[in-house]
């Protein structure tokens, strides 16, 4: 690497303890690799996680790391970043950690637009507690805690993030190494809360949950890799595209029914209005291809920088520069 870092520089000395075959291994590896590419010194990187299989990740990173409590990682990461805007902060969470117990901190971090990068390992199951359904489990999922199938509607993480005023959302697949690096890199570059949903496979408790779209054979036909400024074209033969119909989008076969590349929408990740981004985020197989890559990336002021700006402004005008100044300000009187 030009900057002298290798992914191994980001590997800690701990044995990785995930199940063989777990999607987490690849995600870890791509994060290490992305960080090596970016070249931020290890000591300037902080990785914060909650509790879950995925939340073990910080132990494996040769950076500063904090494996905290279930669901609270966004709040802890918010504290780190607000106190220390100079650090690069990553937050690792499972679908349970981020969206069940941690849902509130998740949406509030996003609303505040704190400059942290959230990697959401979505295996649609509680792995560490051995297989209960999660808030992203598909309706009808049979799991240890839903022997007759779930009756709950799942969250769509991207839809929720955008509903919480999210400015960056990307999606990738554990097995798609290049795509993962691409979106991790984009998230790192983005200032503000970045949410990356990784479709992750839990070989033990929810094996093949994403197989319909992640499967090598069908991936290209069932996913749409979005790239800013590029046409929304997909398919093994790049013969399908997305077009607008009213307020919605629709898949068409290029060359058929009179549709050509010209009709296909161009992806604008930087568009402030969320309308189209929400449509993209919500696309589900089989009706639609599932959107991959950076779906939304809009630059807005971040909480941490605003806090700093406000503080700097006050510093300019105040006469109170120290505790001793403070105690003598305002109403005092002397006794002698």
């Amino acid at each position, binding site marked *: 690497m030009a900057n002298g870092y290798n992914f191994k520089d980001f590997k800690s000395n701990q044995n990785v303890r995930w199940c063989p075959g777990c999607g987490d291994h690849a995600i870890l590896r791509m994060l290490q690799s992305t960080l090596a590419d970016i070249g931020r010194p290890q000591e300037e990187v902080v990785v914060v996680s909650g509790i879950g299989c995925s939340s073990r990740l910080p132990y494996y990173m040769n950076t500063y790391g904090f494996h905290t409590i279930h669901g609270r990682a966004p709040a802890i990461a918010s504290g780190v970043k607000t106190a220390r805007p100079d650090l690069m902060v990553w937050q690792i969470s499972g679908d349970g950690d981020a969206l069940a117990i941690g849902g509130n901190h998740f949406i509030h971090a996003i609303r505040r637009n704190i400059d942290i990068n959230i990697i959401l390992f979505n295996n649609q199951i509680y792995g560490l507690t051995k297989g209960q359904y999660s808030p992203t489990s598909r309706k009808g999922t049979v799991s240890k805690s839903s022997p007759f199938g779930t009756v709950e509607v799942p969250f769509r993480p991207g839809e929720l993030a955008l509903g919480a005023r999210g400015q960056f959302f990307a999606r990738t697949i554990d097995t798609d190494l290049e795509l993962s690096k691409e979106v991790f890199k984009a998230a790192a570059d983005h200032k503000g809360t970045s949410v990356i949903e990784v479709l992750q496979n839990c070989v033990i408790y929810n094996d093949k949950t994403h197989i319909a779209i992640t499967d090598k054979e069908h991936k290209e036909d069932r996913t749409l890799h979005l790239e800013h400024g590029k046409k929304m074209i997909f398919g093994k033969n790049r013969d399908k595209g997305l077009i607008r119909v009213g307020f919605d989008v629709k898949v068409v076969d290029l060359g058929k029914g009179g549709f050509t590349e010209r009709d296909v929408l161009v992806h604008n990740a930087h568009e402030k209005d969320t309308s189209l981004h929400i449509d993209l985020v919500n696309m589900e197989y089989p009706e639609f291809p599932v959107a991959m890559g950076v779906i939304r990336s809009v630059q807005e002021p971040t909480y941490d920088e605003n806090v700093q700006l406000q503080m700097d402004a006050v510093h300019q005008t105040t006469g109170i520069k120290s505790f001793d100044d403070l*105690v003598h300000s305002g109403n005092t009187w002397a006794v002698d």
Partner: protein
Amino acid sequence: MEKSSRVIELKEVVIRFSGDSGDGMQLTGTLFSDSSALTGNDISTFPDYPAEIRAPQGTIGGVSGFQVHLGNSEVYTPGDLADVLVAMNPAALKANINHIRPGATIIMDVDAFDEKNLRKAGYVGDDPVTEDSLQDFNILKAPISTLTKASLEDMGLDKKTVLRTKNMFALGLVLWLFNRNLDNVNTLIEKKFGKKPEIAKANKKVLRDGYNYGVTIQALTPSYIIQSADLEPGVYRNMNGNQAIAWGMIAAAEKAGLKLFLGTYPITPASEILQELSARKDLGVKVFQAEDEIAGICTALGASFSGSLGATSTSGPGLALMSEAIGLAVMGELPLVIINVQRGGPSTGLPTKTEQSDLMQALYGRNGESPAVVMAGSTPSNCFDYAYWASKIAVEFMTPVVLLSDSFLANGSQPWKVPKLADWPAIEPPYAVGAAQDWHPYIRKDATLTRYWAVPGTPEFMHRIGGLEKDYNTGDVSYDPKNHHRMVELREQKVQNVAEVIPELHVYGPRNAEVLVIGWGGTFGHIYTAIDEMNLTGDSIAYAHFNFIKPLPKNTEKVLRRYKKVLVCELNMGQFVSYLRMTYPDIPFQQFNKVQGLPFTTSELKERFLKLKND
């Protein structure tokens, strides 16, 4: 205090301003006490208001009160009974008849004593003075509303604004009663309403007219003079418990060379800490108003992890929500100051009232063996000292510290001699130093067992911590049975080591007393006053007050064993006495408890102490 006397010189006096929630009694009380402090009196104040923002007008539930105790020597409590009561309406009178001294002066706004208000307050007739047998009191009936309206007739203000100033009329009257001039209050009014000169002017006008009304009716009531207090020379300011805590942490952070970070969520009666620190951007304080208390403490913990002095502030229900995260701070061994301003419980309980019933929660409200340092402030202004201490201990021992305050301390105020930061003890963060190769985050100082702190950004010292048990020797996650036992003991020992650096327990009163009274936290002023008065009249009683609870001061056992009878007084059902019993099981503690949302009164304490002595 005789009805006929004209000018009475007093050593101390208690005044209670009382009216509807909308009547501005808190402001009136504050102006009176602030201006009294400026004239050199020692003061102690106690606001007492309903849980509703505006409870139903005219009812007893809606009465808001503010009590000020002033004296020419040190005063420690806002006083049990008022010498002067200002009652802006019948409900205010009714609510306070048990809080005034026989023969006290009562100032009533007769305009508000109409049929409707009398009924709302629960009077059956139209003469509350007779109905409540107040004939022997000095009653000063003034048509305050009418005179206020008259006073502002020409200023072109709307009726609502005019009526809002009637508290100033009452205040003017009280200032006259105490032979004060108006200068200090005028200055304070100008500061307060600086941006609204019309309002400032109106308030000052009504204040003066109230004062002049007093001059006019002089013949009918006694007036009082209180000499200045013999306070130590120095610069003073008024200080309440919440501000004192905020400032104590500011001082400690500056001394330690750390940034102060408060992660918190509003809750009565702790919100002023958040508010005070939000205003301190000048000193680089970062305040994170979080989505809830869990996020509050977690952002603070994140800030601590990354090298700030992390703090959070809350009251009982919020502390309950923080339980799990405190456990993480214990396990992660991170510096964290957790301020709990206690209020009446359980559950939402009596949110605006005072109580000391979160002690057990502070000590034990966590899963597993999860020791934290627990301490408490005992006067509004010494909350500064204990906030400083809490911060120092948190940083130097890498531990969460729970600092207990309460509604009484938080809202009460006192003159406070302004300190110099240079005079305060150093605070030295245990930064990781030396070679990083063999370092791990759970290497500790031999003497204190404090682990070293490697702050993100420090090259080479990258490390991971978390809530799982870790190996004593490597700092890695460990499930080894013996190691766990060792670590559990170690964490407890580290907290116990704090006893080496804190002051010993001080005993007030005669050395040869047979009886020792014990208090902790916000009850100091009342107990001290009671003890002091009894010792003055020859009833020999000793008194020890605890600010450090876990660990207890080193000489605690020695002190406790010196006396034949030991009585523990607290505003709960006996939480501290239980803690003492489990620590010193063979000492026969007695207990005195009150759970009424109110402080002790010195008289009920004296009664109880006498009984104990004579038993």
